[in-house]
């Protein structure tokens, strides 16, 4: 399987976030603060983390994503584990 680019990973995250948090995909951008844009709290952020782990088949330890608030940086963390 071909290695995903950062852009592909970011787009998949945006699609997944849009679908599960019911936000139109076109309203989400890579640099957005996902807490603000998705209007999610810490428990929902944990749910997003679990969905991403399940979707990409990776482990994302909390301490590696602590402080991450935008989709692009999150994609970078995932990319490092693909």
């Amino acid at each position, binding site marked *: 399987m071909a290695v995903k680019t950062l852009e592909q990973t970011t787009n998949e995250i945006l699609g997944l976030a849009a679908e599960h948090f019911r936000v139109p995909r076109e309203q989400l951008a890579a640099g957005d603060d996902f*807490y603000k844009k998705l209007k999610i*709290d*810490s*428990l929902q*952020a*944990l*749910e997003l*983390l*679990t*969905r991403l*782990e*399940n979707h990409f088949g990776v*482990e994302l*330890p*909390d*301490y590696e994503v*602590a402080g991450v608030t935008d989709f692009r940086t999150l994609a970078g963390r995932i990319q490092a584990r693909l």
Partner: protein
Amino acid sequence: MTGHQGKSISWQMKDGVLELALHRAPCNEVGTAMLEELEGFITALSAAEGNASALIIYSQRPAGFSSGADLRELYAGALLKTAAERTTLVRAFLERTHHVLNVLDSSPLTTIAAVHGVTFGGGFELALACDLIVADKMSRFCFPELRLGLIPGFGGIPRLKRDLGNAMVRDLLLTGRSINASKALAAGLVSQVTGEGEALRVARSVAAQVGKFDRMASAAAKRFLKPIPREELRREISLFCELFMRPAVMEGLRRFVESTDTHPYLP
């Protein structure tokens, strides 16, 4: 026994399977009120032993199985007390909680935790007292106690050590990180991972299966496979109390209670 409807928990018996539902908002925090109801439940559990083959514990709260001990209540109860008074208070609470979990752990029934979402701290420890954990794919397991300057206090370390390899035990405890259901399955912590919203249905299927077997044989197998680590459990209470005396713990609890952080549940 047919059933009971409480404020934090409810239970009912159906077709030889006892089902215990946790439903205290927001996410089944274990405080004194829930503990009192759990104490009532274990009395009912003992009375039901002749009529039931399995027990399922599940949550009716959307956020998850349980986020663990009620830290807000713990902090409020400990405020304005001396270190010695705080320790006496917490030791009494832990002794009672351990009694409940030890009865559950050693019940002759086959016990199944059907978990989803947040399964943290004391909630994780409740699941660990069960024989089998059936986990929704969106479950998350974590021991965040070290961030408060504590260790798990409801029997988490001895039961984890009993069930898992040391590398995983150390990873969970020392990093305080959370793991998902797939990781928990790979580690041997859970027996099955289900689709979203399917954990209770699968747990009922497991309960129906275990109900086919001779109860005496199942109970004997359980005693053989799952000894209660009593000495370590006692030591855990002492170590928890020793750590709880420190001012740093009250400061950690205060930070948690007063936090407006967006990640209060994350280590």
